[in-house]
C-alpha cells in the first residue's frame, strides 16, 4: 500500500537526484558521482550562468522600481526619470562587480566573506546528505566561536599550537551543540528541525551572558565583549594585515576536500549517505542509524563551529561581541541547497555568495542601494537554479527530461 513507484514498470521509476550519467559514456566508473560533473562542462554551467543573468535582470528592475527619487519626476519628465533609473542600475552593478573582484582588496574581501559561508554551508550539506535538516548552524557557530575564544584567552601557547587548539575547541563546541540535536533525535525522536531552531536561541543568549562574565570580559570593562584575543590565537592573514582574508580560507578549503573525501571515499560517509537515502535499508544492512544521526550532527555542528571560530579568531580587530555569526547560519541553508549538498557545489556557491555580499557592501556605499538587494538576488539565483525548467522556459531552450530535483528528504522519518 505504501508503494512510491511501481516496481514492475522499469521506466516508471524516476531517476535519482544526482544527474545520472548518460549510459554508454566512457568516464571512469565512480568518477562522475564523486565529482558531480557527469555532463559536459558547458551544459552543466549553462543553467547557472543563465540563472545569474536572470537574477541580475530582475534585480535591475527592482532597483529601478524602488528608485523613489526617479518616480517623483516620472510624471513631468519620464525620460530623465528612466535615464536616472538606468544610471542607478549601472552604478549599482558596476560597484557590485568592482566590490567583489575589482581589486586585491575586493578579492580578499570576497574570499574572507566566503570562508565562513563555505564552512557552514558544508555543515548543512552534510546534514542533508544524511537526511537531516540542520537549521542550527547559527547556534553551532555561537558555541564553536565561544569555545575557541575561551582557548584564545586562557591558554598560552605558541601560535602553531594555539591556533590548532582553538580550532579544536571550536570543533568540540559546535560539535557538541549539533550532536546534542542528533542525540535527541536518535534517542527520543525529537525532530532536529525543532531542536536546532531552539538551540539557536539558547546559544545566542548563552553567548550574550558569557561575554559579560569575567571569564571573557576585559578586566575593568562591563561591556558584553571579549577581551582582545591573544596574538598567538589569531588566524594570520594571508596577504598581510591590510587584507582580511586569513588562513581560515585554507581551513575552509581543507574542509571541502575533507568532507568530499568523507562522503564519497570513507565508510562513514557511505553510511551517512545510506542513512540519508534510506534509513530502513541502512538498518537492514546493519548500520546503526541512530548513532549515525548523532555522528553526522556532531560533524555538521563541528563544521559550523569552525565557521564560528573563523568569525572570532579570524575577524579583526579580534575582540568578540555578541552577534558574530550574523546571518551566516541561515545563508548556509541556501548555500547547501544551491550547491546541491555537494562539497564542491558548496564551495562555488560560497564564493558566489561571498562575492555578492562583499560587492554589496561597496554597492551600498557608492550607489546607495541597500545591501538587501543582494539577499533578493541570492534568492532569485536559487530559484532559477532549483527550477531549471523555469530558466529554460524563459530562454526558450529545449526542455530536457529531468526527474524532480528533490534533494532533501522532507521530514525524514
Amino acid at each position, binding site marked *: 500500500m505504501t508503494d512510491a513507484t511501481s516496481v514492475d514498470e522499469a521506466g516508471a521509476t524516476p531517476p535519482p537526484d544526482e544527474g545520472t550519467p548518460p549510459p554508454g559514456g566512457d568516464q571512469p566508473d565512480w568518477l562522475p558521482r564523486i565529482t558531480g560533473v557527469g555532463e559536459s562542462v558547458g551544459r552543466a554551467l549553462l543553467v547557472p550562468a543563465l540563472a545569474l543573468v536572470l537574477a541580475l535582470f530582475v534585480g535591475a528592475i527592482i532597483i529601478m522600481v*524602488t528608485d523613489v527619487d526617479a518616480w517623483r519626476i516620472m510624471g513631468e519628465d519620464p525620460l530623465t526619470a528612466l535615464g536616472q533609473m538606468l544610471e542607478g542600475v549601472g552604478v549599482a552593478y558596476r560597484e557590485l562587480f568592482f566590490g567583489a573582484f575589482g581589486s586585491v*582588496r575586493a578579492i580578499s574581501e570576497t574570499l574572507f566573506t566566503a570562508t565562513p559561508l563555505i564552512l557552514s554551508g558544508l555543515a548543512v550539506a552534510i546534514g542533508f546528505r544524511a537526511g537531516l535538516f540542520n537549521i542550527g548552524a547559527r547556534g553551532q557557530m555561537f558555541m564553536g566561536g565561544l569555545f575557541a575564544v575561551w582557548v584564545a584567552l586562557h591558554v598560552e601557547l605558541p601560535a602553531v599550537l594555539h591556533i590548532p587548539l582553538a580550532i579544536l575547541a571550536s570543533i568540540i563546541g559546535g560539535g557538541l551543540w549539533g550532536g546534542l540535536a542528533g542525540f535527541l533525535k536518535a534517542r527520543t525522536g525529537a525532530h532536529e528541525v525543532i531542536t536546532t531552531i531552539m538551540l539557536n536561541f539558547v546559544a545566542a543568549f548563552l553567548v550574550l551572558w558569557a561575554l559579560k562574565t569575567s571569564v571573557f570580559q576585559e578586566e575593568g570593562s*562591563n561591556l558584553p565583549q571579549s577581551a582582545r584575543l591573544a596574538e598567538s590565537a589569531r588566524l594570520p592573514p594571508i596577504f598581510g594585515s591590510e587584507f*582580511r582574508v586569513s588562513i581560515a580560507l585554507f581551513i575552509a578549503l581543507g574542509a571541502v576536500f575533507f568532507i568530499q573525501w568523507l562522503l564519497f571515499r570513507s565508510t562513514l560517509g557511505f553510511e551517512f549517505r545510506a542513512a540519508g537515502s534510506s534509513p530502513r535499508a541502512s538498518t537492514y544492512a546493519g548500520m546503526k542509524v541512530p548513532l549515525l544521526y548523532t555522528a553526522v550532527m556532531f560533524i555538521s555542528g563541528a563544521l559550523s563551529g569552525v565557521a564560528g571560530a573563523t*568569525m572570532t579568531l579570524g575577524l579583526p580587530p579580534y575582540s568578540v561581541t555578541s552577534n558574530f555569526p550574523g546571518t551566516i547560519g541561515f545563508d548556509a541553508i541556501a548555500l547547501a541547497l544551491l550547491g546541491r549538498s555537494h562539497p564542491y557545489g558548496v564551495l562555488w556557491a560560497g564564493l558566489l555568495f561571498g562575492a555578492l555580499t562583499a560587492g554589496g557592501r561597496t554597492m551600498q556605499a557608492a550607489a546607495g542601494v541597500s545591501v538587501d538587494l543582494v539577499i533578493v538576488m541570492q534568492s532569485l539565483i536559487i530559484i532559477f537554479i532549483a527550477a531549471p525548467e523555469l530558466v529554460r*522556459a524563459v530562454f526558450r531552450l529545449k526542455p530536457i527530461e529531468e526527474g524532480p530535483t528533490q534533494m532533501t528528504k522532507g521530514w525524514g522519518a
Partner: protein
Amino acid sequence: MKTWMKLLAFLAAFAIVVAACGSDDDESTDAGEDAETTETTEATETTETTEATEETEATETTEGEAAGDFTPVKACFVTDDAGVDDRSFNALGWKGVNDAVTSGAAQPDPILLESTSEADYQPHVETCLAEGAEHIITSGFKLADTTGQFAEQNPDVQWTIIDFGSLGPNVTGLEYQTDEAAFAAGYLAAGVTETGVVAVYGGENIPTVSIFLDGFARGVNHHNEAKGTSVSVLGWDVDGQEGTMTGTFNPADPLVRATCESQIDEGADIILPVGGAINLPCGTAIQDRGIEGALIGVDADAFEAAPPEFQDLWLTSVLKGIDIQTQRSIEAHASGQPLGGASFVGNLENEAVGLAPFHSWEDRVSAELADETTQVLEDIKSGAITWEKFAVGG
C-alpha cells in the same frame, strides 16, 4: 514565454503599487520632508528649552565657538549591526551628522554605511577612508576596536566614536552618564505614580541600556527615602544588577508588548523602556489597556521623536545628546581646531544629558514636584546627591 509574462506581470503590479504610493503621497512626502526639517529645528529648540528649564547659563560656553565659520569636512558615518533605524544611538548619531551638514560644518551628502554584521565594520571604515572622508563617526562600542586600530593608522583623519571613550589623539569619544538624568526621572516618576508602582525594562542587559534602569531605580529609592513613600520599582534589581529584559530590540516581537503589559498587570503606571523602539509597544499597551499611565523616553525627547499618536504618553525623556555632541565634534573639526582626542563624558553638568520637558503632562506634575525634580538635578550636579555611578564605557 508564458512564465516570462507572468514574471513581468508580477513586477508590473509591484511597480504600480509603488508608483501609486509615490504619486499619491507627493504632497504628503513634501509634508514629511517639511516635518523633518521642523523636527530638526524643534529639536534645537528643545535643547534650548531643556536648558531653559534647568535655568543654566547660555549655550555658547561649550565647544562650538565660532558658529558659521566652517570649512565643510567630508563626513562618513558607520552604524553598528543594529542599523540606522534603531531609534537609538545610531539614529541620533546620523541625525547629528545631518545637523552638521545643515550648519555647514559637513559637506552635503555625507556617507552612511549601515552594518548588518560585525564583519561589516572594517570594510565600512575602509570604504570611508577610500572615499576620502575627513571625519569618520563610528557608532557604538562594538566598533571601538576597529576604530582604535584605524585611527592609529590614519592619524590625519578625525574620528568620533559614540558610546565609547577616546581611543587616541585623533578620536573623540562620546560617553554619557545618563544615570544622572535617569535618577531625576525616577524621582519624578515616584512622585507622579498613583499606583505606587513604577517599572523599567530593557532590550538586553548591556551597559548602555542598564545605565538608564539603574539610575531610574535609584532615583525612585531616593524619593522613597526623602519623602517616606514606598513606591516600588519593577524590572531592575539595583543590588543584583539584573532586570527585566526583552532579549530583543525588535518592537514587533509580541514579547515586548507582553513585557510591558506584564508590568502594567503588576500595577505599574509609569514605565521606562530602554532600547530603541521597544518603548512603542508599551505605548500601545497603555492606550489599549486604558490605564492612566505614562512612559519615559530615552535618548531624544520622545514627545518630538516618537510617532504622534503616542504624544500624550510621555511624562518626560532622559536626554542623551548624541546628536548634539556629534554635530559639535564635526563642527569643532570644521572650524579648524586641531584634531581632538579627548573623551567627552556627557553629564548633567555639561548638559549633554538632561531631562526633557513634560509637554502634555505639564498639568499633571505638581509645581512642587517639578521644583523638587529640578532641585534633584541641581543636587546631582553640585554633588549634594551622589551615589556609586554606573561605569560608562570600557
